[in-house]
């Protein structure tokens, strides 16, 4: 498959899904510029992989995007933890800006922190479900048995709730 032929396949998909993918990643990582970078990376991965043997390209794109977003979220949480450690050790660190202080109080940041701590598959499921995906769509995208989506979703919600309470108390 030549580069030109692959470009013809990927570009329409890019135009169709890019905005939604970037928004989905932005919900996870908060930083829109970074979300756009990651979304472009998803399509670069698709281009490198080629589409020949892929059964469902759309499902693949969303799986990879979710994974990329969650990986970035975990990196951000780790970075924040190290920064907290540096602060504790009285090493040089920029003082928190009013914007940072405001953001830390936001529910969204708490939700992101909790999502970064529960198992990736559960986080993926909760994120897609929160965007209104049906059980059938979830099963197709995450390559699960449709019959098990409901049970897995319940477990994911329970894991999320427990982690949230453990970190922040009752909402």
């Amino acid at each position: 498959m030549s580069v030109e032929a692959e470009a013809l396949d990927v570009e329409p998909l890019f135009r169709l899904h890019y905005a939604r993918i970037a928004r989905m990643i932005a919900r996870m990582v908060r930083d829109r510029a970074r979300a756009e970078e990651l979304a472009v990376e998803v399509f670069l991965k698709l281009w490198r992989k080629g589409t020949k043997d892929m059964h469902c390209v759309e499902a693949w794109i969303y799986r990879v995007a979710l994974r990329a977003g969650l990986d970035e979220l975990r990196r951000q949480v780790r970075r924040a933890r190290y920064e907290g450690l540096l602060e504790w050790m009285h090493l040089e660190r920029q003082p928190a800006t009013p914007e940072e202080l405001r953001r830390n109080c936001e529910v969204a940041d708490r939700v992101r922190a909790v999502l970064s701590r529960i198992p990736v598959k559960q986080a993926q499921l909760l994120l897609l479900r929160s965007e209104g995906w049906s059980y059938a769509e979830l099963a197709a995208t995450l390559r699960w048995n449709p019959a098990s989506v409901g049970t897995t979703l319940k477990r994911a919600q329970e894991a999320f709730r427990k982690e949230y309470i453990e970190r922040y108390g009752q909402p």
Partner: protein
Amino acid sequence: MANHEARTTHSVDEQLRALQGGDEWQPDVRAALGRFLEKRREPRWAWRRWAMAGTLATAACLLAMLLPSPQVLAHRCLECSAAVWRSLSGQSQMTRKLPGETAPDFALTDANGKQVRVSELKGKVVLVNFWATWCEGCQEEIPWFVEFSRRYADQGLVVVGVSMDSDGWNKVRPWIRDKGVNYTVVIGSQELAEEYGLDGMPLTALVARDGKVASAYAGVVDRAATEQKIRELLGERR
């Protein structure tokens, strides 16, 4: 139970809804597509990473080859492999280099400090065996040589074991004591090994009474054939 589940679902849905704040955001697809096409033209970092990893691995291998310990290990592995291959492909092979030639001489000291010279053993039948404590094939045939020595020494057979252990007597002396080796053992050198054409352990040469090599075998010898040859050289025929 059902109430608890419903409450959990509702509460988690509520919390996750906090992430939906950016729905009004419209990323610039055209600009992003431009970046995508630009990045697609860039050389792939994956190749560079692999090239870097390959370079580092090669450098590590070269470094390891320069160090003495890995060199010895590699040498032993090669010799063992050669010995295993020979034993699998028909016991032993007669080497073409030595037979008919005067046995390469050496002057080495045995475990008791006594000098051993092949040239001084003229008039005797000498079995020279190159071996090492780590060589599996050698350990198989050494008891046969012990038996030959015990049986034919009074008829003029001298068995000389040339150990190629790099650790020298520290390793060899206790080993030959434990295994009850009853014949002369010396520590060989790389030069001597080359003179005998040693390219894998074990190697056994039979030197006739006239000082010429009657036969030489690379690999584990055929016990019966070797014994028969010793008898022939000693002048004893069945």
